[in-house]
């Protein structure tokens, strides 16, 4: 099993006491699988994604990635996890504004020490970014930016791709096109994909669907 999540709990401080966002979530995901995570706003989807991606620390429960415990890691360990094993695509196309497209795409792979120019070139072509390499993020359209983010994530060959409403900022046609490209490329690498989405249509295209409600899986 690539990803094994067991009884995961997380709460945040709110204005009127702690808010329990996750109240004991367990699930597993294998390589090559795709998983859609759906639920109402505030149901804890993004939090679950952040915990799995090593962006935040859980209060209780365990996350194992490739058999290794992720939950006990310190800042450093989690940073290494983010660099090497996990790739994250956000809704807000989190590109680095000071770097051009080429540098952005290569960034994570180079951080992980796994930059492969051929692969980057292939990804760039596949995502229709050829000729855009010298541009800066602010000069790109939303769809292009998200393609860059996807290329950056996949260039590092993560074992697990996490996507948080990756097409939420895009119009329907573009969204569908970008999703197709992403699914295709993920399938190519054999990585697992876990995607948070509001859209039943998108969710339906995944192998599995999980629905979060009030911090619990249904």
């Amino acid at each position: 099993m690539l990803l094994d999540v067991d009884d995961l709990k997380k709460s945040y401080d709110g204005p009127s006491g702690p808010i329990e966002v996750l109240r004991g979530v367990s699930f597993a995901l294998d390589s090559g699988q795709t998983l859609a995570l759906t639920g109402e706003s505030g149901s804890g989807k993004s939090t679950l994604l952040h915990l799995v991606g090593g962006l935040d620390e859980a209060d209780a429960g365990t996350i194992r990635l490739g058999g290794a415990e992720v939950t006990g890691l310190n800042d450093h360990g989690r940073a290494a996890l983010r660099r090497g094993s996990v790739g994250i695509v956000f809704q807000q196309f989190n590109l680095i504004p000071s770097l051009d497209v080429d540098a952005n795409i290569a960034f994570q792979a180079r951080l992980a020490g796994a930059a492969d120019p051929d692969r980057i070139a292939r990804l760039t072509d596949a995502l229709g970014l050829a000729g855009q390499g010298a541009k800066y993020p602010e000069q790109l359209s939303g769809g292009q930016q998200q393609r860059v983010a996807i290329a950056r994530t996949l260039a590092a060959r993560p074992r697990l791709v996490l996507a948080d409403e990756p097409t939420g900022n895009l119009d329907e046609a573009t969204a569908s096109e970008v999703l197709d490209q992403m699914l295709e490329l993920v399938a190519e690498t054999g990585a697992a994909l876990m995607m948070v989405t509001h859209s039943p249509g998108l969710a339906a295209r995944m192998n599995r669907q999980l629905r979060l409600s009030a911090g619990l899986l249904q």
Partner: protein
Amino acid sequence: MTRACLQALFSHWWRNPLQLFTLLAGLGLATALWSGVQAVNSEARSSYDAAAATLGEARFDQLVPRAGDTIPQQTFVALRRAGWKVAPVLSGTMTANGIRVRIVGIDPLTAPGGIGPQALETGTDPAAFLSQPVLFANPEVADPLAGAVPDRVVPDKGVAPGTALTDIGVAQRLLERPGELSRLIIVPRQPMGRPPLDRIAPDLLRRPAQGGSDVRRLTDSFHLNLSAFGLLSFAVGIFIVHGAIGLAFEQRRAMVRTLRALGMPLRRLVILMAAELLMLALVAGAIGVLLGYAVAAALLPDVAATLEGLYGAQVSGALQLRPAWWLSGLGIAMAGTVLAGAGALWRIARMPILHSAGARAWSMTSRRWRRVQAVAAVALFLAAGILARHGDGLVPGFGLLACLLLGAALALPLLLDPLLDVGMRRTRGVVSEWFWADTRQQLPGLSLSLMALLLAMAANVGVSTMVSSFRLTFEGFLDQRLASELYVTAEDKAQAEELQAFVASRVRAVLPLLSVETRLAGVAADLYGARVGPTYSENWKFLDSRKPVWPHVAAGEAVIVNEQLARRAGLTIGEHLDVGQGVRLPIAGIVGDYGNPVGQAVIGEALFRKLFPEIRATRFGLRSNDPEALRAALIRELGLPPGAIVDQARIKAFSMRVFERTFTVTAALNVLTLAVAGFAMLMSLLTLAGMRVPQLAPAWALGLTRRTLGRLELLRAMLLAALTMAMALPLGLALAWVLLAIVNVEAFGWRLPMYLFPSDYAVLGVCALAAATLAAAWPAWRLSRTPPSDLLKVFSNER
């Protein structure tokens, strides 16, 4: 509505006390620096003004005796009765309860306006000045004087230090010099049809207003330095104020939008914000003035000592908080605020109501703005070049300084940008590549504070260079002019003869100091007769000469002139100068004569004695291998008073001590400027910190730890500071060059040679780096401790 709006506006400060503090502190520090320098400067100046007014020396031509120090009162009456409007002055010192007090007697009926004690000008019973004897004394000497004279003594702060001013009749009685005067002031507007002066009073010499006794010209050099420093500190201050206000406005854009959405008229909102700003400026200005006062109070004793030691000008060591400083300090705070706030308010006024409330990127990023900036910088540099080549006078000199500074400040980001680009291209490694790229992106946001840092460092480099060059030059001057081991003053000509006979067998050389006031090449000047020997040839350094200088001078075939005379009369080596009675000699050397406003020429002793047989030396330089024994012998065997013998070592030691104090002042001001610039940087970084999180969060999400990010932030500040320092060095040197080679020449007629002090600059660089590091440390630390949840918010969909 106004109330609710004000409440909303103010609530921002209560919620963000740190911002309020930075705004007030920024404005306050800038004002403090400005008013501190101004206070030191104006306090010293007003002391001279009092002195100059008392003596009537600064503004009026005077008549002084050609020989001796006395003018008979009858000469005064004769001049008046011939139609010459002159006013008598008698001055001398008396000892009152062990304290030496300078008594200056004037005649209020004939003295031109502005001469006389302030109390008289402003309304105590003036008839009493004439009918009942009264002395207006500087408060420091009023008490001892009151115990020593039968007359009424009134303390008056307007009277020069150590001085008491009184009616001339009282002065004649106290100084026991009935019927005698020291000099006559020539009233500026004279009647028509007067007979020539030398027909009435051939024994008197007319001394022009800006002559040798004008204390002010001497000390102006030092004050000019301080003024230049004040200008620089003001520039630094404006940058800080700009930063502080930009911050305050950027952070409240959301509130402004909300208030407008709720129906607040834009006009009123802008007016209220302007009023709020001015109120804050007033508070910060008041804090700044007090702070500046504290700085000045701490520095003033040193400044007073510096000036007194350097030039013999007496400056009262006590500081008074004058209304003018309050006003100028507050004015600067307000003006700076208006200057800096106008743009921010304008932007608020033009902001569309539905504009994104998020913190906007700094407007300077735009390409158009950068082009404007580049054009302005180039134009300023061009103007500086033109002023340097063709400018004539003090104002163009200062204009040149301003152009240079502003141009450099504007050019700084434009120069740093390609440098960072080069850095980015040359680096290997993804993190360092990102570091360079990100640093480059930060540049617009930091450029204001970097400009402030640039100006601060350049000012420090410039001022250090200037002061140190000053010192080296002065040391050389001392070596040249104080070559003899002992200087002895005889009371009269008889004692002078005795002295010469006494020392003849005891010293290596006796150097009589022969001089006469005269006019050379149409300029008032002192002519010296030198007994040429190794003392002169070993110690005098020429700015320009045709060798061999001294043998020709000794033979009465050449003359040496000082730089002042050469510049004023336009003389060069080889030209001929009439030294008197038609004797024309070629100029063999031009000598630097630092700090002396009067032209000087030196001829051989034999020629001097031939031309001026009536002049006898009463002062002598003595070359001795054992000055201590000689000094003892002169006191014991010849009965000279110890005060008549000055040894060179003491003068030099004293002079050097004076310079140490100058350095204390300079160093203190340096530290202060750097602190202020560091503060500007801190504020910029704090302002940017809020914007940094969204920029840094992706890098963090992609696998950089917060600690690494914090460390990189610190490194970034140091890199920028180091690069800025690299630019500040040439700018500072250019600044020093302008001050020494242009401003000083225009102001005083001599050029200070410029020396370089690499170790000083290294220390300054380290200090600047330290200031930048300190400024960046806290924001970086805060960044490294940002909770992940804050970083995550950047990615949150619900945002």
